Each structure stands twice: as structure tokens, then as C-alpha cells.
């Protein structure tokens, strides 16, 4: 294997359990550096579990996880955040009692480079101007769309190399979903690799380069986004073909 072929992050034959529940079965997938990769699947298919497994919040029992060629299975979340992986959790889960600014500060919790943090703060606020207007507002009083933006901004504050996103479209109006996905593209263009988990397959495939489909913990399809968009099984099962 030569160096060019190495993925930013690679899961090989990973199994994850919650007690007796076998949530991920022999999952292998690659996230290429500089690209947007998406993971599609219905409810309870194990999408969130995949992200938790990557970020060390659920333990992989078999297989390996490699990030930049390094085995990261067994590392703590803090170590992984420090290495440049960061997550926008499902349902946004911003800190509702903290102000917008304090939420962003939590995003850069592990960093000590004051200048860098300031720089990133400006970058993030220019990406989400609405947050700048509301920087003193308490998180819980933001609208759903604003909360999603805050969750993304917070994740970006750690200056990630890889951004994991768990269903960013959940519960948002179509126009807002469009905006959020446009911003994801922009984030990617600024140099962050993105791994986005979605049920909204149309939307995700429209911005992704590569996609995987998960069904009850197993990867059942893996292809370029363009191919997936025309895949027959995909169209029937996930793209709401009528």
C-alpha cells in the first residue's frame, strides 16, 4: 500500500456492542482526506454508534480503527479531539444554559493557543453571522436552526481535521437544511474533511463524494455518491422513489 492510498480514517471489521446488543457488525469504511463522506441508514441502523465508536465513546471489540495511519482504538475522547476529530452530536445538544460564546469556548476547551482560538472564532462567526448577533444569548433560547449552527460552530472551534456530523438535518425545515448543507460544503472547501451521518439520503448524496449505507449494523452498500444516486436498491429503499 502506498502513502497516497491511505485514508484519513479507516475502520476495518469493527464490531461494537452495547452489553448484549450487537450494534455494529463487521463494519469497514474509509474516510478520504479532504472529502465529504456520508453514512446513510434508517432508524436504529447504527449510524450514531459508528460515530461514537470513532470518537471512543463506544468500544469497538474487534477490528481496527486507524486515523492518519495510527491505531486509535482504545484512545480517550480527549486524545482524539486533540488529534483533530470533532463531533456535532445528534439532536444538536448544545449547552442550553450557556451563552453562545460560552458554548464556543467549550468547543476550544482542549486548546491553549490563544491566538489560534481567536482566529478560529472569527472564522466560525463569519461562517455563521447569526451567531455573532446572538453571542450573548443563552443557547436554550436559540431557534432550532440556530442551535444546529451553534453545534457546528462549537465543533469547528477545536479546529478539526475531521468533522463528524450526526444527522444535521434532523427536525429542520427544508430551506434550513439546504443552508446547513451549503455550509457543510463551505467547511469542506476550507479544508476540513467531513463525515456526515444522515437519513436524508438525497441531501447527503448531493454534497458527498462517497457514501455508505448501513442496515442493522452492517454496511450493505458502498460506492461513490454519484453511483449511489442512481443505484436501484438505493432509489427504492432510501431516496423515496415513487
Amino acid at each position: 500500500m502506498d502513502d497516497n492510498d491511505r485514508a484519513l480514517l479507516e475502520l476495518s471489521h469493527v464490531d461494537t456492542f452495547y452489553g448484549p446488543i450487537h450494534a455494529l457488525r463487521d463494519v469497514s469504511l474509509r474516510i478520504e482526506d479532504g472529502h465529504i463522506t456520508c453514512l446513510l441508514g434508517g432508524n436504529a441502523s447504527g449510524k450514531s454508534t459508528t460515530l461514537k465508536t470513532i470518537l471512543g465513546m463506544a468500544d469497538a471489540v474487534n477490528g481496527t480503527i486507524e486515523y492518519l495511519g495510527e491505531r486509535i482504538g482504545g484512545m480517550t475522547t480527549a486524545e482524539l479531539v486533540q488529534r483533530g476529530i470533532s463531533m456535532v452530536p445528534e439532536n444538536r445538544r448544545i449547552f442550553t444554559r450557556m451563552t453562545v460564546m460560552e458554548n464556543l469556548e467549550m468547543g476550544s476547551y482542549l486548546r491553549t493557543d490563544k491566538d489560534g482560538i481567536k482566529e478560529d472564532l472569527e472564522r466560525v462567526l463569519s461562517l455563521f453571522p447569526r451567531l455573532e448577533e446572538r453571542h450573548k444569548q443563552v443557547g436554550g433560547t436559540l431557534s432550532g436552526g440556530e442551535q444546529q449552527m451553534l453545534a457546528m460552530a462549537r465543533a469547528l472551534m477545536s479546529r478539526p481535521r475531521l468533522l463528524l456530523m450526526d444527522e444535521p438535518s434532523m427536525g429542520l425545515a427544508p430551506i434550513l437544511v439546504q443552508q446547513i448543507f451549503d455550509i457543510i460544503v463551505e467547511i469542506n472547501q476550507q479544508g476540513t474533511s467531513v463525515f456526515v451521518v444522515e437519513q436524508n439520503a438525497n441531501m447527503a448524496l448531493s454534497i458527498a463524494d462517497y457514501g455508505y449505507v448501513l442496515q442493522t449494523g452492517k454496511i450493505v452498500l458502498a460506492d461513490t455518491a454519484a453511483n449511489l444516486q442512481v443505484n436501484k436498491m438505493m432509489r427504492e429503499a432510501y431516496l423515496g422513489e415513487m
Partner: protein
Amino acid sequence: MIHVRDLSQASKLRLALKIGLFVGIAMQYLIFVGIIETFHDRFLIKDVISIGEIIMLLVFAGSGYLSVWALKKALNPVHEEVEVPVRRPWAVGSGALSGLVVGAFIALLVIVNSVIEVRDVFVSISPDLIQIVTFGRGETLAGLVIPMALSTILAAIAGTLYIVRADVRRTVVLSVVWVTFAALISDLIRVSLSRPGFPVFLSRIFTSSNGLTVVGTVTVVAVVVAWIVFGPAVQEKWKARKSTMSPARQRNLRYGQWSLLLLLLLLLPLIVGVFPSEVLNNIGIFIIMGFGLNIVVGMAGLLDLGYVAFFAVGAYSMAVLTTLQPDIGGFELTFWAALPIVIIITGIAGLLVGAPVLRMRGDYLAIVTLGFGEIARFLALSDWLSPFIGGAQGIIKIPKIAIGATVLRGPQVLYFLFLAAGAVAYFISWRLKDSRTGRAWMAMREDEKVAEAMGVNTVYYKLLAFGIGAMIASLSGALFAAKLGTIYPHSFSVLVSITVLSLLIVGGIGSLPGVIVGAFVLVGLPELLREFGEFRLLMYGALLITMMILRPEGILPSVERARELRKEDRAQDEVYSLDEPTAAPATPSGD
């Protein structure tokens, strides 16, 4: 859009009746448990009105106030832009009606009592009591009419009061509250005023051996009125003057204020005298623990109901290390030599309790820590450990604290140790609050999983919170042991944990000044109410309930907590909006 809601007359009347019944039953309760009669011996204003009587009058007035309050609530069920006012005839009417019902309850009691011997069942219903509730008229027609009339009139006045100008209402309510408070602590006032150097007439003029004097009452009311009339203007002026000062002078002013406060704190035991200093020290024990538990519960969000365990470990380790009791310990260290060891031991105890509960949250954590608290007490009581820590006999002969060759004696001197320990605990809390650690705790309290995803090492921070919390409690425990000279297992009951937690809640959880205020209210007030014997706890409970209804966020809430409440306000009328009018201009989208 305005739509005025209105209730039918019948339902308005029913509401007033309902409140009257409710308050009337409460009144009966107070009469039957004997509060009214007991407190009749104690004057609010000497020879004018007793506390028993004022309680009755306040209940009368309260029914009117409550009924108008309820009416207003009923008229404004949800927050609308325009408030529907309660019109004057209805305020007077509802008040009077509910008052009449309350008065009728008393009349009924008098009638029933004249027919059958209620006293056979309820010992409190004595002839004396009947005299009190009929305002001296006994079982006569006047005795029936007077309570009803008084109640009706007072309730009508109170009802009207609810709808008049806010400052008038505030004046009346605050006057009543402060006069009552001053009367309850009139003994303390008397003692504080009668000391060498003060002219004798000072204490006589304001207070008597039994309640306030008329002059004292008028003075309190005058101060309240002056505060309400001139207070805002004075504050305004002071603020304006301050804002025109140069930064240097403002800083000096701040220093001046701090030094004044410090001076006051240093002189406090001299100002208040011996007994109140003892009370201050007891409050100090709880203030210190309050700061410690505030770190665990207020900052880190770990609901610990077994906090007394650390207080106990601190007290017991100090006792064992310093006691001169021949069969225990044998270390006989001085307080100061033992203190660092005590702190370390208790800190380790904190980690030991913290470790097994790392994965628990909320109610589970509360129950398990509650168990730990009880285990600590049982261990202290156990025969098994009694060779080491004295079992049920406790540990005696704990020497007094000495500095050099000077032994610190008496509450007025010990006070300074409590002050110092309190200051240390305050300082630690204050520094932690705005630190990285404080942020991590705050994030953890809100959403542990997400905090973890941000890179917060939650295991470390939980243990840190337990450890620091325990160490602060050990300061309190160590001082407690040295202050008393003897400790027994039953001093470390679950009630201590509950009191500390309650004082946090009463003061406003997460707020440092709130800890101090909460401790004064929860620990100081019962001490001052000691003369009321068995009713002390009842009054105290009633006070707590009232306070939590009036100020659910605590007396001095922290900024974050106040924010939260505001948030909940907003959340009510927030609709998850689909339209985002001025959406991010960065992303114009064609759709």
C-alpha cells in the same frame, strides 16, 4: 390582538369562597395545634398586640390577599400582552367574602365549643383560647360577630391592597414583615443594645422584655417608609455620582467598601456579644460546608445527599489525632499539626466515595450518596470501630485550639477561625468558578456526554469535585470537633446533609453570596427562634415553603440560574419556527 377574558360572576364568587375555605381550614389547624394560644404570651408590640393575635390577623388579611391574587391568575391564565386587571369592587368583594368565610370558621368553633366539650378530644381548645380567638368576648354574640367582622374588614383591605399602587403595597407588606421580624428577634436587639458604653435607655426605648415597644415599632415602620420613599432616589444619585468619578477613585471606593466590610466582619463578635457569636459560629460551620457542597452540586451538578460523611470524617480524624482521651488515638497532636492530615484523609475519603459513583447520575447518585452518609454514621456508632473512634460514647477531651501558648477560648475568639476557614472556602470557590475547571464542571453538569465529546475528562473532574468538596467539609468538621471538645455519632445525621443542601437551594444554588444568606436563614433563624420551642420547626418549615414559592430561584440566585429561569419563560412562547427571516446571508438558496 386583544381579547379580554372574563369570568362569570358566579365563578368569581366561587373562587373567593374556595380560598376562604382553604385559609379557614389552615386557620383551624393553627388553632388546634395550639400555636395561637402559645404565642399569646409573647407580645409583638408590648401590651398592644400579641404574636398569637398578629398571626390570626395576618391569616385574615392573607385570605383577602390570596383571593384577589387567585382572581387575577384566573383572569390572566396565560401571559398575554394586555393584563386583565381586577376591578376595585371585585377586589374588595372577593377579599371580604373570603375573609367572612375564615371568620365564620372561628365563629363555628365557638358555637360548637359552647354546645359540646371540644376539649375532651382536642386539648388545645381551652377557655383561654376561646377568649383569644374572640378577642376577649368569649361565648357571647359579640364573640361571634367580632372575629367575623374583623376578618371580613381586614381581608377586604388586604384584597384592595393587592390592586393599589405597587409602592403602597410594598410599604405595607414590608412594614408588617419587618415589624414581625424585629419583634421575633427583639431579645437579640435588646442584648445588642444594652452593653457597656451604650446608654441604658437605648435598649428600653425600642424593646421590652417581651416584644417591641410602640416606639420601636414606629421606628421600624419609619425606616421602611423612608427606604421606599427615598431609597430609589438615593441609589440613583449614588450611581450617577459614581459614574462621574475617575477610574482611580472608583477603585479606591471599591477598596474602601471592601475594607469596611472586612472591618465589620472583624468587629462583628464584639458588636453582637457572646451568645450571638456562638450562633455565628454555628452558622459558620454550615457556611463552610455550603461552599464545599456548592462545588459538588452547584458547579459539578453531582447531587450528593451524603455530604455529612465528609464533615464526619473531618471531625473524627481531627478528634482521633488530637484527643487526650487515654484509650483513643494516642497521637495527641495539636490542632494545627493535625489539620493537614485531616484534610488529606478527608480528600481521600472524597475520592473513595466518588469512584464507585462515577457512572451514576441524578436520582441514583443521590440515593447512593445518601447511603454513604448513613454508612459513615453507622461506622461511627459501631462496636467494631469503637476501640478507635469511641463508638456510641464518641470522643471526648479534644483540646481547645491554641496559637502558640495562647489557648483560644470562647465563641468571640473562635469566630475568627470560622471566619478564616470560611474565607478560604469562599476564595477557592470563587477562583474555581470562572476557571477552566469551573467551565468543565458546568459543561458536565449540563450534558455529560457532550462535555466528553468536547474533550472534557469527566472522570477526572467528577473526582476533583468530590475531592475538593470533601476537603472543604473537613475544615468545617475539624473546627466543629475542636469547638465542642467532644463529638458523638448522632451529630452526623442525614439532617446535616439535608440542611446544607437546603441552604444552597434557599440561597440560590451556584451562588456564593447565596450560600451565606442561605446559612443565615436556615441555621441562624432557628437559633433566634429558640424561645418558640416546639413550634420553631413548624415556623421554619412554613417560612421555607413561603420563600420557595415567592422566590423559586433562591434569595440571591447566581447569574446562570437567573438566566435559566428567564430561558424557561421564553421557552413557553417559543415555537420552533420554520421561517428564519434573516437567515445567514452566506447561503442564498434557490428553492
